[in-house]
């Protein structure tokens, strides 16, 4: 029977959300195509994680080895090459995460298995394996087909699929495979984790966030939006380019490589709405976006949209709020 592989992703003893998102999609494809679903778990002392995975997957392949204690793409590549060559899965599913991005392209090239990255949808359509992915910062979707092959590989965008428990309880079988790693990996070695510097402002605790993006144009414009944030009783947050430029400290960054926030109000000013940003704020109670581009992806995640130059809106809005507050207090 054809088999689908899902690579379980975990860090510091925890399975990561993407694992369950991938498993949900993989179960759907397995059912449709009558394929077996196998979760591959690599690590050291991860038997407990294997037990959890067995509730989501009829089969769990477990490879334990001290050399797999921390993620190392070279060690992973060796083990997965071994497993994929031996078992020939029709499809291998890996997360489009910092781990997956490090691992999948090189693994696919080594095995000569066609790969599509950062997929938001994928599946077998007749003879073809097709994927949907985004281009141009999320402004366009592309439906693409992978070169015909006996085996395919995809990396999956975070939150593209909603993780669900299986409708019928699964009591999967855990199969332990002896580690094929014979020697230490010396060309690339994990040294340590580096934690973000302890932040001054905790944007995850704020009720009101004014998020600024590249549309703010210049550092000198930041005091203006900072005042608006104050008037609203909130704090400033931002997209990645603002941190990259050093205009705001990294603890203000919202998104996959920053913080996930859920304020009562997120006011997005000059932010295009790339998925890495959106993932960090889309569950806010109320989202209002100001962007001069009517096609900016941020508008498809917002409750209210304003297609206008933010520099025309911000000063007027701040005045009106201040007036209202003055009225109330008098």
């Amino acid at each position, binding site marked *: 029977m054809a088999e689908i592989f899902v690579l379980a992703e975990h860090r510091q003893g925890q399975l990561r959300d993407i694992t369950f998102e991938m498993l949900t999609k993989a179960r759907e494809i397995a059912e449709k195509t009558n394929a077996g679903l196998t979760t591959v778990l690599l690590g050291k002392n991860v038997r407990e994680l294997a037990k959890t995975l067995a509730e989501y997957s009829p089969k769990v392949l477990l490879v334990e080895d001290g050399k797999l204690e921390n993620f190392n793409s070279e060690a992973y590549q060796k083990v997965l090459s071994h497993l994929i060559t031996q078992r020939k899965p029709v499809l291998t599913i890996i997360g*489009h995460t*910092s781990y997956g*991005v*490090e691992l999948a*392209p*090189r693994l*696919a*090239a*080594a095995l000569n298995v*066609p790969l599509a*990255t*950062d997929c938001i949808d994928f599946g077998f359509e007749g003879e073809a394996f097709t*994927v949907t992915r*985004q281009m*141009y*910062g*999320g402004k*366009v*979707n*592309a*439906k*693409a*087909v*992978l070169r015909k092959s006996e085996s395919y590989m995809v990396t999956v965008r975070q939150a593209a699929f909603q993780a669900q428990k299986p409708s019928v309880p699964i009591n999967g079988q855990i199969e332990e495979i002896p580690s094929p790693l014979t020697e230490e990996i*010396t*060309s*690339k070695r*994990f*040294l*340590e*984790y*580096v*934690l*973000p510097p302890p932040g001054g402002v905790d944007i995850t605790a704020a009720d009101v966030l004014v998020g600024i993006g*590249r549309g703010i144009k210049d550092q000198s414009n930041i005091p203006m939006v900072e005042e608006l944030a104050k008037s*609203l009783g909130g704090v400033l947050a931002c997209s*990645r380019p603002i941190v*990259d430029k*050093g205009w705001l400290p*990294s603890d203000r960054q919202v998104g996959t*490589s*920053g913080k*996930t926030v859920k304020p*009562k*109000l997120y006011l997005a000013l000059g932010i295009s709405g790339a998925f890495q940003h959106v993932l960090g704020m889309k569950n806010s109670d*109320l989202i209002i976006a100001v962007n001069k581009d009517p096609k900016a*992806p941020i*508008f*498809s*995640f917002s409750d*209210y*949209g*304003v297609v206008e130059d933010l520099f*025309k*809106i911000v000063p*007027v*809005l701040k005045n*009106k*709020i201040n007036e*209202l507050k003055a009225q109330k207090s008098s």
Partner: protein
Amino acid sequence: MDIIVCVKHVPETAEAELKIDATGKGIEKSGLVFDINEWDDYALEEAVRIKEKFGGTVTAITVGSEDSDSTLRKCLARGADKAIRLTDPKFAGSDAYATAKILYNAIKNMRFDIILTGAQAGDDGSAVVGPVLAEFLKIPHATMVKKIEFADGKAIVNRELEGGLEERLEVKLPALFTIQTGINEPRYVSIMGIRKAMQKEIKVMGLADIGLGENEVGEAGSWLTIERLYVPPVEKQAEFLTGSPDEIASKIVEILKSKGLI
């Protein structure tokens, strides 16, 4: 240290209106402004900084049409010593995998200690070229790098994980690193620098020069072929607030009042 930087000439699309072209498989390029891929800008800067510190050379290399010369000139102006453009009609339709193959065949006989690429290209967002190129060259790699240091013939790099977390890795040289934004602050180019760069040569090579067959590049040599582009369906359609800035601001205030936010 001899460093090769892979750069891509891409359209700036954040503020532009995109139109899907007549084939349905691409976007209309006319009217769009092209520039160096944002991530490659940081990669080039990092290469120049390493050269300034340790000596050596920086070579910028691209797979693209003649239009890419402006991106290569920018690299030369910012401190690259050499520029190579890989151009051939047969390269059209190459995906990230085929592009990595083309780059590999051009690079394999060159001397280098480090290769830098961007973490991803802003247009296709594949994040594939760097690691695949490293696999072809059989050298170690690390992706989404935010810091590079050197000790005893090895590189110590910080890679970005999720949520602000990073990991430190030790990587043997020669190696390939894909560079994440924010690793440095790319310098501005002086007018002098641009003038000087105009005089430097850009070496151009085609399919035959790098010894690849027709079927190894373009669509035939790719993993992925685009069938159709379309505008993404909206997840949640925003209600648009219209009017003068004053009217819009009033509407926002009303919404905030109704939600008890002010």
